[in-house]
């Protein structure tokens, strides 16, 4: 029983990180209908920038909480700048081009960011400093660390803030209008280009936060970490129904839970034939099953097929 609860806790932590990244995918998809393949690399940039800032400041004798906040701020700013630039250079000129063209530039951007990061930070794994005192709590026989509590709380607060922004503010209404129909939104006086830029900037800030969280929780930062994370987050976005904010959150949490429960129990279920190294397979199998039986995702409304 305590293993079950432990896996649920791990799944929630992982899931809230997926959810943050998935929001970046789903916002862009909702507005542009574009898979921003480079989003995972933005997460990686956020993690590595935070790593450099925090270790640098700690070396100067800055107290830990201040260094952590500064790390997050610098990472968020850098990621926002990168997100903005990427949209301007690689995606905006291709609006209205054949559908696969922006996908290829996205892949190109992803390769550029990854190898650029490798030049700056090298091929090595960087040990991420502990941001939070190591404190543990007992919950029904399972342990949860302070870091995990903070991760889930911070993710939940950020997502609540985003929902407020999208549902309650003028900017959010403009975003929803653009997602609904860019041409009509433009006629109603929405500056569509500005909204698209803002969407990328917002998504990148979330990515920076997610990057910091991943690295803090797994104590590692690496130039290649963005790729598989991005893939999982995109899977989560599709699982929930891509283009749908609530869907991205639900999908993210669900994927995190599926992965950690799957990895925890697959050994027992198959009599030891498959081990936890099949964790990724599990996630993808669920994804395929959902898509085949409910192609619009769990939360997504029935949309006309996008060819």
């Amino acid at each position, binding site marked *: 029983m305590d293993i079950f609860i432990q896996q649920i806790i791990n799944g929630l932590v992982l899931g809230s990180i997926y959810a943050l990244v998935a929001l970046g995918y789903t916002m862009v998809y909702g507005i542009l209908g574009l898979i921003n393949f480079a989003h995972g690399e933005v997460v990686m940039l956020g993690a590595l920038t935070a790593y450099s800032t925090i270790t640098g400041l700690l070396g100067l004798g800055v107290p830990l909480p201040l260094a952590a906040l500064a790390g997050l701020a610098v990472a968020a700013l850098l990621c926002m700048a990168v997100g903005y630039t990427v949209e301007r250079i690689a995606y905006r000129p291709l609006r209205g081009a054949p559908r696969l063209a922006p996908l290829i530039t996205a892949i*190109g951007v992803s390769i550029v960011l990854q190898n650029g990061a490798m030049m700056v930070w090298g091929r090595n794994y960087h040990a991420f400093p502990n941001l939070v005192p190591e404190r543990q709590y007992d919950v029904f026989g399972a342990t949860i660390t302070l870091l995990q509590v903070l991760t889930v709380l911070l993710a939940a607060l950020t997502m609540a803030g985003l929902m407020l922004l999208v549902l309650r503010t003028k900017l959010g209404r403009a975003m929803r209008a653009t997602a609904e129909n860019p041409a009509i939104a433009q006629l109603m006086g929405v500056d569509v280009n500005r909204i698209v830029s803002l969407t990328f900037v917002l998504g990148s800030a979330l990515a920076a936060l997610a990057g910091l969280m991943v690295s803090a929780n797994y104590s590692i930062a690496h130039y290649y970490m963005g790729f598989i994370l991005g893939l999982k987050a995109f899977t989560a976005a599709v699982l929930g129904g891509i283009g749908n904010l609530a869907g991205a959150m639900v999908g993210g949490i669900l994927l995190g839970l599926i992965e950690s429960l799957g990895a925890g129990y697959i050994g027992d279920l198959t009599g030891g034939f*498959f081990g936890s190294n099949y964790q990724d397979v599990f996630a993808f199998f669920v994804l395929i099953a959902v898509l085949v039986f409910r192609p619009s995702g769990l939360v997504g409304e029935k949309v006309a097929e996008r060819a």
Partner: protein
Amino acid sequence: MAAAPASAAGRAPVSAPIPARVWVAYAGLALLLALLPWLVGGVLGLGNAWLRTLNFAVLYVMLALGLNIVVGFAGLLDLGYIAFYAVGAYMYALLASPHFGLHLPAWAILPAGAALAGLFGVILGAPTLRLRGDYLAIVTLGFGEIVRIFLNNLNAPVNITNGPQGVSGIDPLAFFGVSLAKPVVVAGITLLPLAATYYVFLLLALGVVFVTLRLENSRIGRAWVAIREDEVAAKACGIDTRNIKLLAFAMGASFGGVAGGLFAGFQAFVSPESFSLMESVMVLCMVVLGGMGHIPGVILGAVLLSLLPEAFRYAAVPVQKYLFGHVVVDPESLRMLLFGLALILVMLYRPAGLWPSPLRKRELKRSGP
């Protein structure tokens, strides 16, 4: 420059007599292809590494043409295509290596690998028939990853794929008792193994080109294009969209399977690392960059994208030494960086690909302002 032959091909109906200059161009191309190993090895003095690259370029041409059937003709975005390449490669590796102690001949394995890959294509295609566009992309992506993860982990409790270490010591390709691992003597000329392999690959690639060219103008090919343009309308016209789509998956996959078998025999070693998502993406880039659905364009894309990173690799160190006096950045990451930039630039300036099909060009012109 590249556009001129395309528009000529577009204007000429299938049955029209082919003008003499086209024949001359074909003859020149054939001569170039035939002499290429000597040009690379002897005249340019580039050595064996480039001959290997050349062989891989030909393999990639086969792969890209196979994917072109699925993505270019039928319009089904497949991000897990490399899985079929993996199936073909592992089929060869397991049936002709010391791993299981089996040493079946290549002529038996390659068709079997193609058939098995085709079967996998149907397995992937069947549940995804209802999906379109990006959803199909993510399911195929997941499928590709699943295949790779299984290859990576099927070494315990029963060792089938030997896990991450991969299978080594694979038998070299051999046809009619002639092994491609030793120098081959044909009509008094001695061909080194790499050159001999090149000719075998080239022949098979030409076979693939021929088949796809014939497919393109066939009833099936036109059905694929009809589905790509408008699936509902295609169905209304009496096309059995389900079977035709499955056929696209199966045919594309079987080409990938053959290429995979050749890869295993050529490389003598396979491991799951060779079949990552990045490889699928690479092949897709070849198809899109060259010009989706246009066979000469796809060939161009495959050749360019397989040669370009290698060219960057060789240029990275000397150019840096010349500019700065020493190596400033890691050449490996620099070449990938340049490659990524090249992808972005080409798409920005030629969004329909380097050599788009004339049909597509006409459409773009008509729908433009």
